[in-house]
């Protein structure tokens, strides 16, 4: 696949595409297998009948079976499928994502304490960036968006680029160790 990416030799590209297609097939089968794991765990919980766990597990299995059957039989653009997707799934996911806003407030209260000069710089920078990104900051002082943008575009970006380069090379190193068989612990080799 690496060679297929770099070289224009057609058989290589075709072989690479074939391997990628196999990867897609494996992912699809893995999803089926993982669903079996999910069903197994929740059926076990229903059979144990502890507190309200069985009720939630039952609801999950009914929803899983129902939506799967509906999607396969009538397609994902079907009215009923779309209704449940728009009424339940989308708001549910959006709600959980929105909880990040609350968690950042509690994390900020707990963690953003000035203990030394570096944390003081961090806090002041965070204040500039936060106020620079909203209308009230600009209304209070024109400097907030200006300096906030400078902080994001210069020091923050410099740090990010360094980390990106490091993480990129680290990824290549990790991939090379896996390809050469030097690192086998992800397969259950000795990890101690």
């Amino acid at each position, binding site marked *: 696949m*690496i060679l297929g*990416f*770099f*070289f*224009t*030799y057609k058989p290589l590209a075709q072989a690479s595409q074939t391997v990628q297609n196999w*990867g897609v097939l*494996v*992912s699809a089968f*893995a*999803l089926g*297998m*993982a*669903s079996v*794991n*999910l069903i*197994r*765990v929740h059926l*076990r919980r229903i059979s144990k009948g502890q507190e309200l766990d069985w009720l939630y597990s039952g609801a999950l299995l009914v929803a899983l079976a129902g939506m799967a059957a509906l999607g396969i039989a009538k397609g994902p653009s079907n009215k009923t499928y779309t209704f449940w997707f728009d009424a339940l799934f989308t708001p*549910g*996911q959006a709600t*959980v*994502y929105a*909880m*990040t806003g609350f*968690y*950042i407030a*509690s*994390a*900020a209260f*707990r*963690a*953003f304490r000035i203990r030394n000069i570096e944390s003081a710089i961090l806090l002041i920078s965070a204040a500039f960036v936060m106020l620079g990104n909203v209308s009230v900051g600009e209304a209070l002082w024109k400097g907030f968006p200006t300096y906030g943008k400078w902080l994001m575009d210069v020091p923050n970006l410099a740090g*990010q680029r360094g*980390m*990106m*380069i*490091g*993480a990129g*090379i*680290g*990824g*290549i*190193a*990790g*991939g*090379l*160790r*896996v390809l050469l068989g*030097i*690192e086998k*612990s*992800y*397969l*259950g*080799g*000795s*990890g*101690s």
Partner: protein
Amino acid sequence: MIGKGKVFSFWALIVIVVCMLYSMWRAKSGRPVKIRKISGLDAIEEAVGRATEMGRPVHFCPGIGGISAIEAPQTFAALSLMGYVAHLCARFDVRALIVTIRTPEVLPLAEETVRQAYLEEGKIDSYVPTNIRFLSNQQFAYAAAVFGIMAREKPAANFLLGAFWAEALMLAEVGSEVGALQIAGTAQLSQVPFFVAASDYCLIGEELFAGAAYLSRDEVQLGSILGQDISKAIVAALMLVGIIAKQLGSTYFTSLLSK
């Protein structure tokens, strides 16, 4: 031969691979590699020990990325660290090691990693397959399920290692709420600040990839880390030369990058 726009990338990859092979050979031929202390990795044993003393489980999440996309190296790095954690959990008789999975193809790797660790420690009877749980392949459904598991099981140690996206902060905050000692690590740059704020120890970027080498102290693996550093030095030198050249009006390096 080499596709348009990929020549520089190809030769850059060759240089990086040569650096790493050379460093690995150098380490194997008896020249030890020193690596700096990474407190997040040193704290793993402390975290698992804490779980043993408190009689509470350990929760491990190997990220929500897969094994076939750009975040695959992070997932493999997390699985390697999971093997180490599983060995410790088996050795110290931790009440339970709960592994939560979002990407289906990671599930068999996680099951095998944990099972093998328990087998090697001679504690195969303690291995519970249903503790390795696929929850959902939808990001926030997965996150909500993990919240529930952490609220019910109250792990004493929470490992969040691998590729994470928007759920990172939430997982770390919920872990903090239940009183877990948290070791987090990711190469997803957008999530690093959240982990730094919300967890006790954070592995940033390549510290995650260095994990298996650091913990095993295997000479060849440590050698590959030296190779990474040599590659980074070459990149930094190229950047410096390129900046100076650009300031002097030369576009050679800019055109070189797009070859």
